[in-house]
């Protein structure tokens, strides 16, 4: 598969949006060369504010701008803007439902060599625990551009998680994203893999391997984690009778927990989970870490086999 950078796409899409709408304002916290908000800064210096290393302050400034009619994108690494600023996100954005889009890059363990301190692996649990937030994890650069465009045109607070490394392209050009509507990437009847972010490409790899073993597996990209497309989960549970959830996140509070709540309530079927469990990862290359911590196509393959056995 060809690869592309979701954060570079973010930067370019911001420029495109900035040209269309003068109310788009962008904030960053000294990371614009990495989050790629630097493209917007160059194009629209008056509408860009580098807040320096004051992330909590940045969230407050974003709220004030949004309360005054601006559509605000605020970026940093996931660990700093989401995990560090939880109380600010709660009081200043979630409670008043202000129109601020938190777009965080460097989510998950694929941050790599910078190590534990920089690897946000609890951000989805935290962002989903903010009432009113829409939480999106794009699977590739094409979906990332769409997510950013959709966020700009929808009212209310968003959390969009992007990655540091380039990620495989899984969509054709011209793909259109609908918030809260999951995408069935492959049809199948023996089991369903519900994946998000970088795990979507790995799920697609896994189903090819499983097909050769006569296991006919469905793949759903749950790009919008909140609000969750419950109908697609119930349909998958009813039609395939087994579900595997794959995400680059701790076991608690992310996509797996959210899908399990729906399955338990609406249509109990065997489930397996591919995630980081309850521990931090170390420094290393992204691919080495994915191997070490069990986030590969073969981990998904094994989980599908064991969930099918439990049917």
């Amino acid at each position: 598969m060809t690869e592309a950078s979701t954060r570079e796409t973010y930067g370019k899409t911001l420029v495109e949006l900035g040209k269309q709408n003068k109310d788009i304002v962008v904030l960053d916290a000294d990371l614009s060369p990495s989050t790629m908000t630097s493209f917007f800064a160059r194009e629209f210096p008056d509408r860009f504010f580098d807040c320096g290393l004051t992330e909590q302050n940045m969230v407050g400034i974003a709220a004030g701008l949004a309360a005054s009619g601006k559509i605000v994108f605020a970026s940093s690494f996931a660990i700093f803007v989401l995990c560090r600023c939880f109380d600010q996100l709660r009081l200043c954005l979630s409670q008043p439902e202000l129109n601020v889009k938190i777009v965080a890059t460097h989510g998950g363990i694929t941050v790599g060599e910078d190590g534990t301190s920089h690897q946000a692996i609890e951000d989805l649990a935290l962002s989903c625990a903010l009432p009113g937030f829409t939480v999106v994890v794009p699977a590739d650069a094409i979906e990332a551009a769409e997510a950013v465009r959709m966020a700009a045109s929808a009212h209310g607070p968003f959390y969009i998680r992007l990655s540091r490394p380039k990620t495989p392209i899984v969509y054709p050009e011209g793909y259109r994203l609908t918030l809260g509507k999951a995408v069935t990437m492959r049809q199948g009847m023996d089991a369903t893999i519900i994946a998000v972010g970088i795990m979507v490409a790995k799920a697609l790899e896994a189903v090819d391997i499983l097909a050769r073993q006569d296991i006919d597996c469905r793949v759903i990209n749950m790009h919008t984690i909140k609000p969750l497309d419950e109908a697609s989960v119930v349909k998958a549970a009813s039609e395939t009778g087994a579900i595997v959830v794959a995400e680059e996140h701790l076991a608690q509070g992310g996509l797996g927990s959210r899908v399990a709540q729906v399955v338990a309530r609406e249509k109990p079927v065997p489930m397996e989970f591919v995630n980081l469990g309850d521990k931090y990862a170390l420094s290393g290359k992204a691919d080495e870490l994915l191997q070490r911590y069990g986030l590969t196509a073969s981990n998904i393959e094994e989980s599908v086999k064991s969930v099918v056995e439990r049917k």
Partner: protein
Amino acid sequence: MPNHSEASPENASPSNKFNLSTAELKQMAKKLRRHVITMIATAGSGHPGGSLSAADIITALYFKVLRHNPENPHWADRDRFILSKGHAAPILYAALAETGYFPVAELATLRKLDSRLQGHADSKFTPGVEMSAGSLGMGLSFAIGVALAARLDSKAYRTYVLLSDGECEEGQTWEAALSAAHFKPDNLTAIVDCNGIQLSGWTRDIMNLEPFTRKWQAFGWHTIDIDGHDFDQILSACQEAEKIKGKPTVIIARTIKGKGVSFMENNAAFHGKAPTWEEAERALKELE
């Protein structure tokens, strides 16, 4: 949010429509203090001390300084008042009711289930409340955002934010102080209600902030020191702030916690405790 700037008569008149005299302001402040006592006693919980210390500042702003229109809380060109010390919501609610944002009778619903008057200020429910507050140290950042939006839109409105001295122990307040000096919103006036007392005692004993004014000066702000219970000083400080260009202004208002009620003055016990009805009656007598 609808843009009413074209239609509103306030465009033509830049002044506060109440425009009370100093003598009238004093009477109004007493009235607002009485509301605070009654509201909190009725609710059975709340924070009287920090509402009473801020009463004169809030009265001056709503009845003399701010260009605002209670009939149209979202008027695009209104001056913004942001209450960062969200526990002082009762004094803000009293001012909003007396200026006509909602009926005075509604003050009796403070903190009750389904009331528009939440325990801490909440912009989603209360007409005239610009920002949700309650977790301390966030209002100055918010106010900077509002002031920067005015600059981006070439609007003439001014942004006022009221902080407590206690919340200046929060690191975010100083992040915001840094960034305001950096972005230079000279359309921003911060006021610190320095009543010297926080929940568990004197601020100087718990986490000393002094030399307070010099800290703000070192951060690049224009500072004005005043007695926060002297209307002439409050008003002239607000006027001076409007004339300062190229940097934000902070008014360091020295106040007395619990001001106006003898047994609440300088008494940390009344930071977050409602008066009994007997205490409330004594307080109201003192505020006649």
